[in-house]
């Protein structure tokens, strides 16, 4: 037995074959630790493939509550013959390995702790039906790991039966027998030789485990969405599918049994965006969800939405690259392009959620913002946030009422004697609109992307175009006061600041602690929640000598966006930390880069 136990601070890396049913075993293992009150996160690293290629799942347990990816692996569960050797060779000295006996990995290195388990033999004992063994086999490592890490087996049982649900009790029972077989084997045959251990804590009480896509879908449903149009694309499809499920459960009119929403799986992203435009123009709360390649196809409609001033919520679950790129890897690759997509001076508000609770709350806010400001609005998730499991606060019921913005009714028109669609009545750049189907002879107006004057009449006059463009600029400035302000951790002693968006926050916060604890470097950090930026970003930069901007992309897109927005005098303070390897960002990468640029290492 190792001298000092490492309690509630490690990562488990499970290597399996895609399509082998390992997702259930991994989720159950993660939930078991979560139920013991220990903060956890789960990251699925999967190939673009239905079955057969290697896949990895990493569970991190952190008593300090760090839930970003941890670079170092402490316990490897090696189930995949194809990757077993590489997986073992990549480990740091001292790590532990649970492996499938026939893989005979123990001979590869002598600086690791090995636990050999005969999975085929054990599964045969609990599953007489050979066809089902493949699906049950992985559950055995839950039993083995539970024993090795001192995870309460009762928590494993609870997690397993919750996962399978009431309808699949028989399957759950068979899987539970597999867990017990793994545990029994470990008790009788394995001698604990690593230091890792789970001990009960109370840091997860009242929390959820949920992925960002599901949370965003739920947010849209509680925002009062009425039209969803979409085209399947990884990693956003599960968002649309979660919405379809929630809408079916929560949004059928009890009186008529009919739907208070419409969902259309369109023929492509162009049509999905066009339907959002048409629906929102007619007064629906409309949205679509997609990923980068889909945004490219939507860009013409997005530009039209900007100029014709049509609301719409566009959720982009970002992945790596154009075309197929790396469709199952994560990136903040559309940070810059989403802010300006399309042509002829266009810009859009963009939300940067970092957690499931923000996916939920920002989705509800985004619909109000889109309708108040009559503009397409982006919500930038990334694959890490959208598809991985996160601990989350309980979702809070939205406080702000549904705000449909400046829409004139027939009564308003009667009182006003008419309206001018693009006239800036209130000085905030936001004009009034009417919806088709408003029963009044003064309601109609003509919508076009081409030049128009403030009465919505066709115009190619320079002065009309300039006036319109300037009003759109005023509108964007008004938006600045309506988007959420950043989250700031200010340290008066710090000369160094760090700025990030979205999921980079976890690596940023942990790296800031590492810089303080390991190098004595004080830092402040600021997490942007939306574009356009607010004045607090300027203040933050002024308050520090050097500010590191974290980007999960090669070209420092967030930094570039800041440079376009900020006072030139501030730009010399800015530095860049970039990562673009497709995996969720880890703290050590941020720590190393800041330490290097600070000349400490």
């Amino acid at each position, binding site marked *: 037995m190792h001298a000092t136990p490492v309690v509630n601070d490690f990562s488990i890396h499970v290597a399996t074959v895609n399509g082998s049913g390992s997702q259930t075993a991994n989720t159950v293992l993660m939930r078991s630790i979560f139920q013991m009150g220990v903060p956890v996160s789960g990251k699925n690293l999967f190939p673009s493939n239905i079955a057969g290629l290697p896949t990895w799942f990493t569970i991190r347990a952190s008593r300090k509550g760090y839930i970003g990816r941890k670079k170092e692996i402490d316990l490897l569960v090696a189930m995949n013959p194809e990757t077993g050797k590489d997986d073992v060779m990549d480990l740091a000295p001292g790590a532990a390995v649970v492996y499938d006996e026939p893989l005979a990995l123990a001979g590869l290195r002598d600086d690791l702790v090995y636990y050999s388990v005969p999975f085929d033999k054990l599964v045969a004992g609990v599953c007489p039906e050979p066809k089902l063994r493949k699906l049950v086999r992985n559950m055995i490592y839950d039993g083995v790991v539970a024993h090795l890490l001192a995870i309460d087996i009762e928590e494993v049982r609870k997690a397993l039966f919750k996962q399978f649900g009431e309808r699949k009790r028989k399957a759950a029972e068979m899987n539970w027998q597999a867990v017990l077989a793994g545990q029994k084997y470990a008790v009788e045959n394995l001698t604990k030789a690593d230091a890792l251990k789970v001990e009960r804590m109370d840091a997860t009480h*009242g929390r*959820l*485990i*949920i992925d960002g896509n599901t949370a965003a879908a*739920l947010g849209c*449903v*509680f*925002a*009062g969405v*009425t*039209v969803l*149009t979409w085209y399947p694309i990884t990693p956003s499809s599960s968002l649309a599918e979660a919405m379809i499920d*929630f809408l079916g459960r*929560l*949004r059928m*009119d009890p009186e*008529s049994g*009919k*739907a*208070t*929403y*419409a*969902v*259309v799986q*369109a*023929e492509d992203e*162009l*049509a999905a*965006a*066009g*339907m*959002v*435009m*048409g*629906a929102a*123009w*007619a*007064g*629906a*709360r*409309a949205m679509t969800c997609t990923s980068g390649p889909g945004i490219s196809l939507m860009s*013409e409609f997005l530009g*039209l939405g900007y100029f014709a001033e049509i609301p719409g919520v566009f959720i982009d679950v970002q992945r790596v690259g154009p075309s197929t790129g790396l469709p199952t890897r994560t990136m903040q690759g559309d940070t810059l392009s989403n802010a300006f997509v399309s042509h002829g001076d266009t810009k859009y508000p963009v939300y940067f959620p970092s957690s499931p609770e923000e996916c939920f709350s920002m989705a509800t806010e985004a619909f109000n913002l889109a309708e108040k400001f009559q503009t397409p609005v982006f919500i930038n998730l990334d694959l890490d946030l959208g598809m991985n499991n996160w601990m989350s606060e*309980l*979702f809070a019921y939205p406080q702000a009422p*549904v705000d449909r913005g400046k829409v004139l009714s027939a009564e308003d028109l009667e009182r006003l004697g008419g309206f001018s669609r693009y006239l800036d009545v209130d000085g905030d750049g936001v004009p009034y609109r*009417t919806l*088709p*189907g408003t*029963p*009044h*002879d003064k*309601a*109609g*107006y*003509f*919508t*076009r*992307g*081409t030049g128009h004057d403030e009465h919505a009449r066709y115009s190619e006059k320079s002065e009309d175009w300039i006036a319109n463009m300037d009003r759109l600029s005023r509108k964007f400035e008004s938006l600045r006061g309506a988007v959420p302000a950043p989250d700031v951790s200010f340290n008066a002693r710090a000369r160094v600041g760090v700025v990030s968006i979205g999921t980079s926050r976890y690596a940023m916060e942990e790296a800031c602690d590492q810089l303080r604890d390991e190098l004595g470097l004080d830092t402040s950090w600021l997490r942007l929640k939306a574009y356009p930026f607010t004045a607090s970003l300027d203040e933050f930069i002024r308050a520090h000598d050097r500010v590191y901007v974290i980007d999960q992309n090669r070209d420092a897109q967030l930094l570039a966006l800041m440079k376009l927005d900020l006072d030139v005098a501030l730009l010399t303070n800015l530095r860049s930390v970039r990562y673009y390897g497709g995996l969720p960002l880890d703290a050590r990468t941020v720590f190393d880069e800041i330490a290097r640029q600070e000349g400490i290492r």
Partner: protein
Amino acid sequence: MSTPTAPVKKTNRLGLDVLPYRGGKTTLCAGCGHNAVTERLIEACWELGVEPWRVAKISGIGCSSKTPAYFLGQSHGFNSVHGRAPAVATGALLGNHQLRCVLISGDGDTASIGLGQYMHTLRRNPAMLYLIENNGVYGLTKGQFSATSDLGAKSKSGAVNAFTPIDCCLAAIEYGATFVARSFSGDKKQLAALLRAALSHDGLAVVDVISPCVAFNDHEGSTKSYSYMKDHEEPLHEIDFIPFFNDIEVELEDGGIREVTLHDGSRIILHKLEQDYDPSSRLNAVTRLHQASDSDEVLTGLLYLDQTRPSFTKTLNLVDRPLAGLPESMTRPDAAALERINEEFR
């Protein structure tokens, strides 16, 4: 001295004269077929007593797509993106399925850049008039062939089209439109009746109108010119339309007509010409279109009608009220619902 008396204005069933059904002055060429189509559309909407505020006019890009500015000036109009009007129109109907949607497109807008959206719109059968002003040529960009140009047709510059045409009516019948007609902008009576029928149909009504381009496709060798159409148009029937609010008895000559009642009670009367034509038969419609094309005839009239398939918003089982106007109490589930979801993920 006699005082001149103002002429009595004719009004429709809503008490409206034709003025609210008119729009801005056309900016298309004098003699353009599209202007005649616009006139027929104005008449049809006025005669049917369509409420102007209930109409959404949606178009893509091109000469035809400019025309929504020239009729129903009180209605909402949306000149959208090239080839994408079907998505915008479908979206508008999702937002408010009580709108009367009139989509105006052309042959480039529908059969080239917009073919994908066209095909998928056919499959969904949204309740709207999909009017194609088909001149076989790109006018705004000065005379290139479009995808409906016939094989062997000559352009104004003398080039010969080497590619087979896309027949929007054949596609419409094949892929799911429930009202399919072809007409000619110069055939005033037929077009007027078809448009009134199409506007009364509860489903997707595709009306493909051969509408000559006087600037770029009205010459010798063109198969979309006025003179070609005069020589080659082959009407399936003479057509009359009797709106639901008009209970005129029709004088029926024995066996000489076919009468179809639409969902709102309006009636389409098809007067038999040389042979009987049953527009409810998809197979027959397709066969007749192929026969006509083999003998260089342009078949016009009501090609196909299916009143059994539900429209898109009915398929989606939407509540009766337009989604656009639903109150928060119907679109935001209550706090207890969120509690239950929270519990599921604990």
